[in-house]
């Protein structure tokens, strides 16, 4: 499968929601009229300066944007190569980049007169962000979360409940993010008349991949301006972790048409690519699930495979369709990091920079540890630190205790 090199990497999707062969609107008829309404409502909002102004105001005063671009001096010295900057989206209200997207979608839901919000969540970061904004605007909130994730991300479950959301543990399938999304879609089909589905990543039927990307692009836009201020030029490379890929798309998109900027996405290689993992691009092929065509992990009969990652937020057998397209267009290089590599990076960053990252961006840090030493000292590398690790402290603590016992 080949993709012609386009004049711009930033013009997609087309009017049918396609990025090359990827994307689309593969949903049940019950949802189709609503998806068309949503597309129209989003186009109207996007063109409305009042909507943008209101969003910017909440970004500044509620979310805490812009997030800093921070020179990670000790990590840079330790690795002895590229000059490493962190885009500190873990400092946002709610502790991750997820809030950027949720703010936009909740404002849109209010505009559309929807009172009931549903969401799926893996690590719980999207669920917490959704519960937070629903509390802020007085909306009903139901969050679907795989039962396995409910177990391993308890702090976020408690936060959602304190914020007034109803968390429904999903018992089907592998009981992780994919199954949570199935259940959210079933809820949506049932309650389509009053419910807005706040999807947490750059996946799902059109217009979600485009809309979520637009809301997250604030990350890359700020990075451009901040790097200009700090170094007087563009960065040389960008690195971000990828489950569905919303933090990565948010950082990457404003730089796609700058050929001097090398771009790396990092998938979760779990136990390793020959074993259980969640790296859809490295180990999958194009298929159709959850409303879009994209790279998926599956068997030869087209049955979707169970993903595995230490990080609940990356534990998904698919990836956003625009990433699939950028992969085939060879604009972005997709790498992967194993559970163990991510854990090592998690610990290194905690000790060196005094920042406990979420396990998700720890995957990006793991690849920075390999990429940065090979680059010259004037190479400017930006990593998206998309979430903080508070939620992972109990899980990592448990793993370290087991490790200590075993040795």
């Amino acid at each position, binding site marked *: 499968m080949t993709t012609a090199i386009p004049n711009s990497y930033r013009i997609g999707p087309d009017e049918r929601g396609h990025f090359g062969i990827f994307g689309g609107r593969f949903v049940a008829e019950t949802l189709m009229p609503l998806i068309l309404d949503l597309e129209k409502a989003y186009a109207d909002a996007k063109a409305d300066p009042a909507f943008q102004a209101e969003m910017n105001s909440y970004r500044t005063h509620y979310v805490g944007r812009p997030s800093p671009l921070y020179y990670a001096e000790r990590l840079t010295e330790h690795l002895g190569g590229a000059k490493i900057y962190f885009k500190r989206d873990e400092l946002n209200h709610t502790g991750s980049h997820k809030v950027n997207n949720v703010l936009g979608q909740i404002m849109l839901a209010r505009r559309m007169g929807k009172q009931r919000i549903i969401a799926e969540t893996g690590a719980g970061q999207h669920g917490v962000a959704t519960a937070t904004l629903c509390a802020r605007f007085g909306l009903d909130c139901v969050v679907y979360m795989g039962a396995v994730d409910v177990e391993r991300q308890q702090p976020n479950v408690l936060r959602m409940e304190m914020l007034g959301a109803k968390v429904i543990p999903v018992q089907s399938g592998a009981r992780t993010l994919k199954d949570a999304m*199935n259940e959210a*879609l079933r809820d949506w089909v049932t309650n389509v008349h009053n419910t807005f589905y706040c999807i947490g990543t750059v996946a799902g039927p059109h217009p979600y991949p485009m809309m979520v990307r637009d809301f997250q692009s604030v990350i890359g836009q700020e990075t451009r301006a901040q790097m200009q201020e700090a170094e007087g030029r563009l960065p040389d490379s960008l690195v971000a972790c990828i489950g569905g890929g919303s933090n990565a798309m948010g950082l990457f998109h404003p730089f796609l048409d700058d050929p001097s900027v090398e771009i790396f996405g990092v998938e979760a290689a779990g136990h390793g690519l020959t074993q259980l993992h969640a790296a859809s691009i490295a180990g999958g092929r194009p298929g159709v699930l959850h409303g879009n065509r994209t790279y998926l992990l599956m068997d030869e009969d087209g049955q979707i495979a169970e993903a595995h990652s230490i990080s609940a937020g990356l534990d998904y057998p698919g990836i956003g369709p625009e990433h699939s397209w950028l992969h085939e267009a060879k604009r972005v290089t997709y790498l992967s990091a194993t559970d163990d590599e991510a854990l090592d990076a998690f610990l290194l960053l905690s000790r060196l920079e005094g920042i406990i990252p979420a396990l998700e961006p720890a995957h990006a840090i793991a690849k920075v540890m390999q990429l940065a030493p090979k680059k010259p000292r004037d190479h400017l590398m930006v990593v998206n630190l998309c979430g903080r690790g508070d939620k992972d402290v109990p899980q990592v603590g448990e793993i370290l205790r087991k490790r200590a016992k075993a040795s």
Partner: protein
Amino acid sequence: MDARFAQLKTEGRSAFVTFVMGGDPDPETSLAIVKALPQAGADIIEIGMPFTDPMADGPSIQAAGLRALKAGMTLKKTLHLVRSFRETDTATPIVLMGYYNPIYIYGVDRFLDDAKSAGVDGLIIVDLPPEEDTELCIPALKAGLNFIRLATPTTDDKRLPAVLANTSGFVYYVSITGITGAAAADSSAVGAAVARIKRHTALPVCVGFGIRTPETARAIAANADGAVVGTALVDALKASLDADGRATARTVSAVADLAAALAQGVRGAQQAAE
């Protein structure tokens, strides 16, 4: 398919459409069940193509698909099931129902060839709305297979023409907004909805989702060209399995007996109408 509806029209009655999951609980038992359905009164048989992630199905049909997959069912074996059924029954229309990904991975052209030669009459693919017609709908129609579309309570008059444009065989009206096996359908609302669809098309309109008993089947059939029952049959099958989820001596008859009772319900509608 058209012949079957024409025949039903001369008999003055509605179609009884049954859904069972292909390969549930295992390929052999599943074939025996499908073979027993016409005898029990099924006019059209829908066979589910198992998929790991059936996003419009409730717990019963999700579980049926997983039982089938666990028993080794694949799309190839579902086509084989149809081929085996056709060895003894060339009259009962067979519709394959499911999700797009297994077909996409099998290869659209190869699938259409194999489905046609196996004796499949039509397809219902839940996650292919008219906006994605170039994927499978148009190629299927060209290959001579019916592409049966779902219309729902959210499909308004403005949208109906788009939904009906490339539909053939019949229109499947989903009587509720929801997943399979959920709330019961309200027969008066269904009657109005069927009448609305019939203003836009000459195709027969069959109604499904929420029909579980002979009484509901009768009430729905009185207002439509056919009544589709799925979850109730799948539940009857499940209730007949042993503790390990394997077929027992009762499994085939459990499904066939309920189908026969439901068929009586559907046939009763015609008598009531006369």
